[in-house]
């Protein structure tokens, strides 16, 4: 059986995928998506529904391992960089075919980059390929080699090389005519969408589902030499409502379902009867935190003097009851977060940052040291005699956030603070966060995304647009923020992984020490999957289908 089929010989340099149970061919996997894709054009795709779907169809030079988050070869089989870290050479895997049988070459990579940097095609991929605001330079060395030249060393370079490669032979005309952004929309016949990925689009019914068929000429093989992927068909159904998704899973209409904390007990008790297992994918990579506005242009005295006081923020941090939050808002399924890099990011997360266990006595003691005192009326006053009162905002409509806000506000009231709780419409809240105006204390969340710390520079650097506690400053306002800026600058150009990790560890220590944002908890992600599926291994960074090519049907 080994290498017996003629087809395997076509890819000269297949990638061997090891470490999984030996699978077999056949079967269909059906999952549900909360939203439907808005486009089939991977370059202009902006929301996760489109990028998740097209992730099965289009691939980059490198890929991120869904378990270890390490960068591995994909369409490029290998790469090297010059001593100064400025010139990178990528060698393409030879014999990789587009779904229509045409061979992938360096011309496709160059074409894709031309498109990404074209002003007529506004896209969000470009932002990941800028070094100091400048596009990186690229050229074709030969049919299978591409070279990149950077203005200075750029540590996230490999992460950035995950940008999706598009077929030049099918899109070059549309690009020359200036209509590339309007090409390959969801009205395009699915068979015309051509990538290199393990699956190709085969059917799309608006508002209902999309069907993907196995790519029989894929460039990955298992340890027996069998061409991956194993599954014949993927069906992605669009089900907007999470409750309906749950019913659909119990009914057998979908095979994999992400279980919410509150549902965990019910799903667990019915697991053996329903023929499925629940996997713990670890803590979510997103964050949920409390922040005080320290912006002197928008916050009045006396609030400004409290919010800019490190001791005040630390006292509040000690008053955040993570156990109560875990139980009330996440059904007991969450872990406390201390460092700004979530535990989900593995070694990126510094385990030794300063922690603030829930202790109201300690909060009180810190407040007293800082000159605050609780009067006979039970209200906290600062050393000027001002009553400590402020407004806590979060987005209305998220039950979890409202519960978390209520718990925090309750504890702060015990300290004598007068906290007014005001839920706001999400877009209004986002507007206020960007402008820095009209808010004092905010409970906010950000999704996790990439394991690359430099991608979060927009939050932690003092000139970042999401530097929410003091937004809109060209210069750092404090010495510690200046140090964080410096660390992010060095981190971006430090190539050695060990020294790079130390740099971001220090940044995490500073943030934890200064607590400009007070982290709460990270929800544990549970995924239910039917017993007949083999090699299911969901992770919070990679999702349930990061290893889709090795998932198989045991039946």
């Amino acid at each position: 059986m080994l290498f017996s089929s003629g087809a395997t010989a076509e890819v000269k340099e297949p990638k061997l995928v090891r470490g999984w149970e030996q699978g077999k061919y056949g079967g269909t996997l059906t999952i549900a998506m909360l939203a439907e894709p808005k486009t089939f054009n991977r370059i202009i795709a902006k929301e996760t529904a489109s990028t998740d779907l097209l992730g099965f169809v289009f691939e980059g030079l490198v890929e991120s391992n869904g378990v270890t988050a390490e960068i591995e070869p994909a369409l490029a089989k290998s790469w090297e960089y010059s001593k100064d870290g400025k010139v990178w050479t990528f060698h393409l895997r030879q014999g990789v075919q587009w779904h229509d049988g045409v061979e992938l070459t360096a011309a496709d990579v160059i074409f894709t980059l031309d498109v990404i940097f074209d002003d007529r095609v506004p896209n969000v991929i470009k932002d990941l390929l800028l070094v100091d605001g400048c596009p990186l330079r690229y050229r074709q060395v030969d049919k299978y080699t591409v070279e990149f030249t950077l203005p200075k060393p750029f540590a996230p370079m490999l992460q950035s090389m995950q940008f999706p490669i598009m077929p030049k032979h099918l899109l070059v005309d549309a690009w020359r005519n200036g209509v590339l952004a309007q090409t390959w929309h969801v009205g395009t016949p699915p068979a015309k969408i051509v990538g290199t990925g393990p699956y190709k689009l085969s059917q799309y019914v608006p508002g209902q589902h999309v069907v993907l068929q196995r790519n029989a000429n894929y460039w990955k093989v298992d340890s027996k030499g069998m061409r991956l992927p194993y599954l014949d068909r993927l069906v992605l159904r669009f089900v907007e409502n999470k409750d309906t998704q749950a019913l659909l899973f119990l009914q057998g209409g979908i095979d994999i379902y992400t279980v919410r904390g509150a549902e965990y007990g019910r799903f667990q008790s019915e697991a053996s009867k329903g023929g499925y297992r629940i996997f713990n994918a670890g803590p979510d990579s997103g964050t949920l935190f409390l922040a005080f506005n320290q912006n002197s242009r928008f916050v009045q005295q006396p609030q400004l003097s409290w919010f800019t006081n490190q001791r005040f923020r630390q006292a509040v941090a000690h008053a955040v009851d993570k156990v109560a939050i875990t139980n009330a808002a996440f059904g007991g399924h969450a872990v406390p977060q201390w460092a700004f890099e979530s535990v989900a990011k593995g070694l990126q997360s510094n385990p030794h940052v300063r922690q603030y266990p829930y202790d109201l006595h300690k909060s009180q003691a810190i407040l007293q040291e800082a000159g605050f005192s609780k009067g006979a009326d039970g209200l906290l006053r600062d050393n000027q005699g001002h009553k400590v009162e402020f407004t806590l905002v979060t987005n209305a409509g998220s039950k979890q956030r409202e519960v978390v806000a209520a718990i925090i506000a309750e504890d702060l009231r015990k300290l004598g603070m007068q906290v007014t709780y005001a839920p706001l419409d999400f877009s209004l809240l986002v507007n206020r966060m960007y402008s820095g105006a009209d808010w004092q204390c905010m409970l906010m969340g950000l999704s996790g995304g990439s394991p690359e710390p430099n991608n979060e520079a927009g939050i932690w650097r003092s000139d970042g647009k999401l530097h929410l506690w003091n937004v809109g400053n060209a210069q750092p306002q404090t010495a510690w923020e200046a140090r964080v800026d410096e660390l992010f600058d060095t981190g971006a150009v430090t190539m050695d992984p060990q020294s790079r990790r130390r740099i971001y560890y220090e940044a995490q220590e500073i943030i934890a020490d200064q607590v400009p944002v007070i982290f709460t908890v990270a929800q544990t992600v549970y995924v239910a999957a039917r017993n007949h599926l083999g090699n299911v291994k969901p992770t919070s960074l990679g999702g349930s289908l990061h290893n889709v090519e090795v998932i198989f049907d045991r039946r």
Partner: protein
Amino acid sequence: MSRRLLYRLLWFVPTLLGMSLVCFLIMQLSPGEAFSELGMDPVVSDTTIAALRFQYGLEQPVWQQYLNWLYQVVHGELGNSISYNMPVWIVISSRMGNTLLLALVSTLLAWSLALPLGIYAARYSFRLSAQAVTTLSGIVGAIPSFVWALGFLFIAVRLSLPLSIGGATSVDYAWLAWPARIWDRMQHLLIPAAALGLVQAARLIRFIRATMLDALQQDYITTARGKGVPETWVIRRHACRNAANPWITILGMEMGGLLSGAAVTEAVTGWPGLGLLLLDAVNTHDSQLVLGGLITGGAMLVVGNLLADTVLAIVDPRATCD
């Protein structure tokens, strides 16, 4: 009749202008913008956001944006959807059939339930069973249809009923033979149609009962009964005929209402209709798509009213004399 049709069509223009202007302004006044959520990604730069806004003319003043849109419409174009980056009419027409089907079936269901029950409740208004019908319809109508939908879904799963959850057809629909296709459609349609139809029926029952009670108190009914006309004849020929005018008007108005009213039920049952699409478009601030949907909805309302008028003219000759 043709004069009346022309009159209706002419009225459509100012109605639409007013509707679109109000809708446009509300969308502008509501916080947030098409790309504000994208900006929450720390990686996406302000330059990219600006380029995207420029692509859709969002950097222009509000009045200019509205005029641009109007200019397109006058030229027979609905423009490009911001979130789909493709012509609005393709997006809408891909959902239109499903919405019409659901509207048709649920309306049929509602009327075939409401007509006999409403007439019964009026005819025997002093019987306990008729009062039960009235009370029950009050309770049923007070619960929103999406709650019914969730309930039906739950029951279907618990009792393992042969009903499908989500979508309008199965994945393998394209490979099915005709009889199997019809069966497949019915399996998908039943829950959303029942949820919508039930609430609609409950409201109709009360409405039909009230108009019938009114008609039954008229002098000509007493006269007919006094002359010894059989009771079924009294109800069918005299009471119903006279009570029917407002029913037909309501039927016409429902046509337009179904487009917008079913959005939440569509979301819960995963029905791929226009309501769900437009709800999504409002949430993502896709003003082009919302306005396109509005025009479609307006057109449906006009068509519904026209149909009702035509039927009315046949049923009641007085209606044509204006």
